[in-house]
């Protein structure tokens, strides 16, 4: 059976797939939400489900909260770094040193 299905590869693809394919976009989303936070208390928005918190009323992407922007920057940097690392890995494994 194991020569027909490589179970170990499959579960790794699922796990890393979830991390990269769902996790990175989620991180991006968190960054985006942080970015839209307005100048007041950034923590209120998530506590009130559905109704307008300080950031939720914003129609624009950049809300102005400094902490929000910092969190966003960190999130986006991680996402970009992960992507960059991924591309680098592909290049590495695709150009084996002779």
């Amino acid at each position: 059976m194991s020569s027909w299905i490589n179970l170990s590869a499959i579960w790794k693809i699922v796990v890393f797939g979830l991390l990269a394919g769902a996790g990175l976009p989620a991180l991006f989303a968190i960054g985006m939400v942080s970015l839209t936070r307005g100048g007041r208390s950034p923590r209120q928005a998530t506590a009130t489900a559905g109704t307008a918190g300080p950031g939720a009323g914003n129609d624009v992407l950049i809300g102005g909260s400094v902490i929000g922007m910092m969190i966003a920057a960190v999130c986006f940097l991680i996402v970009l770094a992960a992507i960059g690392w991924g591309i680098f890995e592909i290049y590495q494994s695709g150009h084996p040193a002779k």
Partner: protein
Amino acid sequence: MHNDLILVLVVITALCFDFTNGFHDTGNAMATSIATGALGPRVAVGISAILNLAGAFLSLAVAATIASGLVHTADVTLSVVAAGLVGGIIWNLLTWLFGIPSSSSHALIGGIIGATLAAAGIAGVEWQGLVSKVIIPAILSPFIAGLVSACGTWLLYRISRDMTTRARSHGFRIGQIGSACMVSLAHGTNDAQKTMGIITLALITNHTLPTGSNAPDWVIVSCALAISAGTYLGGWRVIRTLGKGLVEIDSPQGMAAESASAAVILLSASFGYTLSTTHVATGSIIGTGLGKKGADVRWNVAGRMATAWVFTLPCAALVGAAAEGLTHLIGGTAGVIVALAILAAVALYIYLRSRATKVDHENVNSEWTGSVAPGTDEAMAAGTSEPSAG
């Protein structure tokens, strides 16, 4: 056997296959972005073309030649390769005509297997390789991609639920562009290799290159350009099905779908599986319909696609076998030329048929009225049950 004329014809045919591969798969990366307006149609295919070009150069891990794990290389002759390509191209064009996203990889593999079967019989095919490296990944990958995409979609909506619709759409459109670019890159990395592998195989079979050679530079460049050119042409019919026919997509879904696709394709490649990017992309798009509450999946369209997928390998194999049979019957160079001439005629016919229900960058986003042919007067009048172009 050493026949440079056939070799040249085979190389040209392989590049044509690469070209059809390009436009068949543009939708995998760009359909969701075009559907939500994150990217204009022509910009999208332009970016995708460039990234496919880059991706083709990014990795030279020519997946152990598409054939060597699937057929016994000793049984491969130039006419087998030519016949295999004929099978692959015809199936690709037919599914394109009906706007069905189907696997170009499977079309190619099917064609080659069919031709090998006709030339060398059952013993010529590596059945275990076929099942474990092609068929099982093909069945599993859409589900894995769908799972990742559904989770991603749910997460994205959950995290962004306090945002206004406008801000959310705007923000995720930016995200969409990034993820769509990743898929284009992944596609170039994944798919251009196949044709490079086939051409290299042909070169080795013709004794122009020693066994075990890597793809020469001119092969790499020409394949990269061919797939890039095909990508730019757009494959609007398939883009339309993926972007509008399956699920009505909003930008968070688009981003989740493309991110899932990129992740699964690249991860699988690193484990040595060359996947069908189409299966993965479609699985992601359906997953994104499942991950969002209230989203609608058009299961009849999905069902039609699944049917096409199941039939791809066998049908392409049939055409490949027929082509090889014909070539063998006529014999020698003339046989191959006749087969390729028939291919050209069929291709022309399909192209002319497609003009009747033209889909291009202008109507790719029109309302889905039941078939890939957008809003013609008869289609509108007949309602959504018209079976028409597939």
